[in-house]
């Protein structure tokens, strides 16, 4: 009987096992546990208060106003006629937030770069940045609707308007953060304007840009929900559903949709906060290249 057997087990690819972490760093699972436990405790705390309100504070005749969590989520999620459209709507809102954030990032960085490069551009563009920040978005919503229709594009526009200011202000601050001596160094070495931007001002702005991105991510979620809420044409986003459920007083789907919206915001913000930490940490060489 002949069996062909490999004489050796195939060697694991070199990157199959993670490199030994530096000594001072705790193993990844421990930091994950340390980060997760408080979050889980907070969620449990909220659930406990919720149950308390449903069963102890509210008399049974008014319990429909705040059905307990298992009932609220159970009713909404077990019924595909409710849960499927809800997740589809959530996905559309996520898409709006991502696209809106991407546009706000590009526009914000471009805007700030122009302002930092030419003082006349700053004089022209800065007032508009301030106006964007100070005009209540609700005052612009009807205009956006009239100009851009009442569906996807208009929702993205609301998102961009809300998220762009922190991108502009943080990038602008970051571009100006290089020291006078560093600028002198560039001048003495006859750096061109573009070299100065690329090798000094822009790298110096990276940490501030990521801080702006973190703030803008949180605002993009708000923008997406607000956009949904006002622009109801086309396929609905989660904000549209919130409005529909409110009008129908269907408490279980409403509470589930609110919880999903909150989760969406937290996940989106946390993702960008983690990106911020990772990139900026590496930027200053805390993580070896």
């Amino acid at each position, binding site marked *: 009987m002949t069996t062909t057997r490999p004489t050796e087990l195939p060697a694991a690819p070199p990157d199959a096992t993670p490199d030994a972490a530096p000594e001072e760093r705790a193993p990844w699972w421990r930091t994950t546990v340390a980060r997760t436990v408080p979050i889980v405790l907070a969620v449990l705390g909220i659930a406990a208060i919720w149950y308390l309100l449903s069963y102890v504070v509210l008399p049974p005749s008014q319990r429909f106003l705040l059905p307990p969590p298992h009932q609220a989520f159970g009713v909404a999620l077990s019924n595909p006629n409710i849960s499927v459209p809800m997740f589809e709507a959530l996905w559309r809102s996520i898409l709006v937030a991502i696209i809106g954030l991407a546009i706000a990032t590009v526009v914000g960085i471009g805007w700030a770069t122009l302002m930092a490069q030419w003082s006349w551009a700053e004089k022209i563009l800065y007032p508009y940045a301030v106006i964007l920040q100070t005009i209540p978005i609700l005052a612009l919503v009807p205009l956006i609707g009239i100009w851009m229709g009442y569906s996807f594009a208009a929702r993205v526009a609301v998102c961009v308007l809300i998220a762009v200011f922190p991108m502009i202000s943080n990038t602008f601050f970051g571009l100006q953060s290089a020291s006078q*001596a560093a600028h002198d*160094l560039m*001048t003495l070495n006859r750096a061109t304007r573009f070299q100065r931007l690329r*090798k*000094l001002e822009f790298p110096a702005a990276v940490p501030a840009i990521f801080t702006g991105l973190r703030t803008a991510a949180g605002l993009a979620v708000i923008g997406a929900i607000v956009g949904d809420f006002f622009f109801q044409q086309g396929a609905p986003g989660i904000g549209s559903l919130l409005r529909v459920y409110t009008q129908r007083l269907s408490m279980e789907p409403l509470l589930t949709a609110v919880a999903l919206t909150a989760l969406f915001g937290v996940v989106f913000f946390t993702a960008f906060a983690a990106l911020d930490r990772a990139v900026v940490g590496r930027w*200053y*060489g*805390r993580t070896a290249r």
Partner: protein
Amino acid sequence: MTAPTTTATLVLDGVGKRFATGTVALTDVSLRLNPGDFVSVVGPSGCGKSTLLRLASGLETATSGSVTVTATATSYVFQDPTLLEWRSAARNVELVQELRGVSRADRRARAQEMLDLVGLTGFERQHPRALSGGMRMRVSIARALVAEPDLALFDEPFGALDEITRLQMQTELQKLFVLKQFAGLFITHSVSEAVYLSNRVLVMSGRPGRVVADIAVPWDYPRDPTLRYDPEFATLTGRVSQALGEHS
């Protein structure tokens, strides 16, 4: 002392500087830096020492008098190491040649050479945050020397360092001076540092600053660090201090 191999000179003739704010930083400053000179400038704080250096480097222009530099390459060492925090030590040194379009391989090799020269072999890939104050200043000096300057300007580079590191850096800077033969103009507020490093010490008066004494330092390079304990060294620092005291 061996004859200098470079021909760089710096001549300031009756230079004055008045800022737009109306502050008069310098009045009628004349000085001459000959090839192979290492000249220190001491003076009370606020007397325009740094302005003098900024004029010599071309970062500022004089409001009166003339500044004439004949050098093929001038380098400038700042008070603060002024390293780009997001670049490793080697990439900080590379910056100067990067701006001039030198190829990556060439500038890498050159940066390595300079870092070896200032005693930072093995620290090439460290970011400034991971380096001590003295090491950061070494990177800064390596960066200044990367373009083979024949005129080097120093703006109180060791002012923020602790005494031990400072003495060590003085010794090493002198080695570099002997090796590279650049003409040096060195701003400091330390009289012993000025005397130890230079062949001439210029004393400036308080604001508005002008040169009130030009004191020659006789010892040949390289100088032994123990020269600092020599009675003659003490006499000379005493003369400089006296000139400072009379005009501040």
